[in-house]
């Protein structure tokens, strides 16, 4: 349905439309700034994400290698028995922070990295292979928590950039042109009505 069919060509409508156009233009400007700001933030986080992903992969390889050595040398039975000695799981707290209106998570962890004497198993009956497997897995879990924070932030930023981009485009190519077209139409109609009125008055006078 054309805009001309739905709009009433009145002065109050024109004033309303002018206000809407002004608001849309300032909104468009703000959203463009937000989009640009988010893109800058995204690039910052992208570098961190690239590094953290490769670090996770590297740490995973080391952890798996150390665990495999421990399993082969000490035996799966020994590794399992030693693992029973620790039942405390790491505590993860989830907070949030605001990046240009986007709420992103901040993940904090405690009791992931443990000292050799805090792991629960005795020192005399175990070996460095067990220590190094545990140590490597603790490093990996810590890195995964960091990666989770960075990658979730990146995902949320990307979603928000996409959303903002769509809004900017909608304002720029749809909302503002349509409002302008409606405003032009009303102005045209009002001018025409004014001309008709003048013509009618002249005709009455003559």
């Amino acid at each position: 349905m054309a805009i001309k069919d739905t709009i009433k060509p009145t002065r109050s409508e024109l004033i309303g439309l002018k206000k809407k156009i002004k608001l849309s233009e300032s909104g468009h400007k703000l959203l463009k700034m937000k989009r640009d700001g988010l893109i800058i933030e995204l690039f910052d986080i992208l570098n961190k994400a690239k590094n953290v992903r490769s670090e996770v992969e590297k740490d995973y390889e080391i952890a798996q290698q150390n665990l495999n050595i421990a399993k082969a040398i000490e035996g799966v039975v020994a590794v399992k028995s030693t693992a029973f000695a620790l039942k405390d799981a790491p505590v993860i707290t989830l907070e949030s922070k605001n990046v240009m209106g986007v709420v992103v998570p901040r993940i904090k962890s405690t009791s992931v990295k443990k000292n050799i004497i805090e792991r629960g198993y005795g020192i005399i009956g175990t070996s460095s292979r067990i220590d190094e497997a545990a140590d490597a897995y603790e490093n990996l879990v810590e890195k995964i928590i960091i990666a989770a924070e960075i990658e979730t932030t990146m995902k949320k930023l990307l979603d928000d950039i996409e959303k903002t981009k769509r809004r900017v485009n909608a304002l720029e190519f749809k909302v503002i042109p349509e409002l302008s077209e409606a405003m032009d139409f009303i102005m045209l109609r009002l001018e025409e009505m004014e001309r008709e009125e003048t013509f009618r008055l002249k005709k009455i006078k003559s």
Partner: protein
Amino acid sequence: MCGLFKTPAYAYITARVRARKRKLIPKETYPKLLNMQLPEIIRFIEESEYKKDVDELSAKFKSIDLLEHALGRSLGASYRKLMDISRGEVNYLITEYMRRWDVWNIKTVIRGKYYGASEEEILNCVVSAGELHYPELELMAKKESIGDVIASLEHTPYYPVLTKYEGGMLNKIEDELDRLSYTRLLDAVGGSPGEKFFLKFIQTEIDIKNLKMLFRLKKAGVEREYVQNILITGGLELKESDLTRLSGLSFSELVHSLDGYSYWRSISDVVSDQMTTLMDVDTKLDAHLMNYASQISHYYPLSILPVLDYILSKKIEVDNLRVIARGKELKLADEIIRSHLVM
């Protein structure tokens, strides 16, 4: 204590042990196994002396887990057989030496109870090679709590140590149990020529345990007092004064202060203050102990030494087979597998 046994029946036990040792896999087989594919290794083990154990456990476990449990079961059965066929002083010494397996099993059951593991999970991790028989271990695993497990051990030498447990983490009680097994063993060894070498072997083992712990604890930056309290006294070269001195050093100082001990020759090529892994040190120290054991094993044919030689040889066989099979399954590099084989 060993004074109680004036006529040790070594002739019989050493003859039995020699016959059993002949059934062990020769050293030359390990390089061949290393070149085999995993299915070939599995088949080799299934057709060897371990056939009976593999068959009996085949309904419960599969693949490499089956092999590992069969190897553990065979080890336990061999050690129990030694205790069954020996008498007097030699039986006493073997039983004391095998207490480490009792300690292992008690620790496993208590850890399982602490973690909340199921009875089956706990029993899959025990190796019935000591004085505590499998039915006793089954009963322990069935207990509701750690307190009940400790109460069930009331008439064993471990009870006084276990009563010190006040809840929480298990590391202190585990270390106390391990220390107890060494203290009892040191007290058990008598003064006959064969036993003197056996004592030296135990003392060397204690030194090696202490060295490994020093490396681990110092690398982790653990405080002097904790280190000093955990070390085992009664070693051959590392006397109490040495342990006190070494426990006060930093990791770097520790590395530079070991060259006066005979163990340094075995580890000098892998030790440096910049080292990132201690696995190589552990491997070298284990090899040092095994070399010493094989050196002394033929000194006195009618003594505890041939028995010790068999005990260690059987353990080496089981460990080597597990390292090869598990290493192949986990796709470890052949060099890593080879470096952990004792040949």
